[in-house]
């Protein structure tokens, strides 16, 4: 699974990429290459080798050298894409050892990739519910606004101030009740 909600009609820019927004979320599952990389290509020893050469030439004690050599391994750069490529073509025993060393993370039975689709469906549903609620609330407010305007027009034409006040209070009660329901 490469993309969710892929918009097939999206416009392309000169590089052939979508210019329109499309929710091109990739489930973070790496697809190993069909080619097995050379083992030397999965790590980079440049900095490590420089450090090791310096340590060896140095005048520090043997124990200190040993410690520094361990520490130098922190500078070995692992190329995790190539490591995953290598894993896909390695023997069962090698794969086992690579997993133990956390050089790749296995998505057991594709639970992460498939679960993501299920999560995305649930989220779509929640978003729709929220949009519907928002729409209803806005409509209710519009109706209320129109009623208030009508009421004001009407109350201007009425004669008795006490009658006006009573009508006004009755309307405000109804408005409050409607607004209260929306807040809940």
């Amino acid at each position, binding site marked *: 699974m490469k993309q969710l*909600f892929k*918009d097939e009609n*999206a416009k392309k820019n000169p590089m052939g990429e979508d*210019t*329109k*927004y*499309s*929710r*091109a*979320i*990739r489930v*973070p*599952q*790496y*697809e*190993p290459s069909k080619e097995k990389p050379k083992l030397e290509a999965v790590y980079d020893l440049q*900095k490590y080798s420089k450090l090791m050469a310096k340590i060896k030439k140095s005048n520090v004690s043997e124990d200190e050298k040993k410690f520094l050599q361990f520490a130098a391994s*922190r*500078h*070995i*750069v*692992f*190329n*995790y*894409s190539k*490591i*995953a490529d290598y*894993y*896909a073509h*390695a*023997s*069962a025993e090698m*794969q086992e050892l690579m997993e133990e060393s*956390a*050089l*790749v*993370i*296995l*998505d*057991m*039975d*594709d*639970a*992460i*990739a498939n*679960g*993501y689709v*299920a*999560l*995305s469906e*649930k*989220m*779509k549903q*929640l*978003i729709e*519910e*929220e*949009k519907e*609620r*928002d729409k209803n609330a806005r409509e209710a407010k519009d109706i209320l606004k129109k009623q208030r305007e009508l009421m004001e027009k009407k109350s201007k034409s009425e004669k008795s101030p006490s009658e006006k006040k009573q009508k006004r209070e009755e309307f405000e009660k109804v408005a409050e009740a409607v607004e209260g329901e929306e807040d809940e």
Partner: protein
Amino acid sequence: MNYAVFICTHGRPYTQTTWKVLRDCGYTGDIILMIDDEDDSGKDYVDVAHQDEKLSLHIFSKELYMLANDSGTDKPIRNTHLYAWNACENIARMDGYEYAIIVDDDLTGFRYRYEEEGHLKSQPITKNFDKLFEAHLDYMENSNISALSVADARNYIGGQAKYGRNMNTMVFRKVKDVIEWKSEMYEEMVTSLVAQQTGSFIFQPTFFQYETKTMSKNVKGGMEEIYNSKSVFNRSAYVVMWHPSCVSFDANNTGFKLRKDNAFPKLISSSCKKI
């Protein structure tokens, strides 16, 4: 599903916003305010905790966590997130929660992010947070994900919602997958790297985002003072120190930026595994 929200807070009994925002969004479950025993406003937090039946307060010993946790320096600072995050993990485990949602105290809102007619749109969340939480926790329950983090607005820049592999201000944690938070600065990044290079899987889906307020000088507490007292270079150096093979500084016109390359082991389908 047995879970609770843990809010890491300090010195903001009445100005921390996360608790109320969670309730406004429809979250009805347990919330635990995590404060340390060096917080002068402890009594005020007790007062706050009485305002909500499902809100409780937990006070942890900072000294104890300072002794146990790796700050990455020989002169650790006291006001860092690190100890509170580890305390949340431990308390969640001890209280028997299967999942902990750990979050900062300065969130002001949440929004769904979705695609509609080729545009990235947003919709404020006003209800259903229980369902939203449970959907995410179900996803974790049925897979080997150790943590899911929540994106912020920056993750949606550039026309595509990008997933990430870092933890940040709001994290869903599977408690049984032990993760020890490390480093007094940029602990989210350092810990995400350490955890994933040793076998955990952390992922940031992009269905909703949190919002935070811009801190003003009048709002005290939190990490603001520390961030202001250390330069970006100084703070970033922690991450480089922990992970020299995959993190480096990138200098640009405005200063330094951290660059990560080859940082995370890849997630691959178990169908690649030979039997």
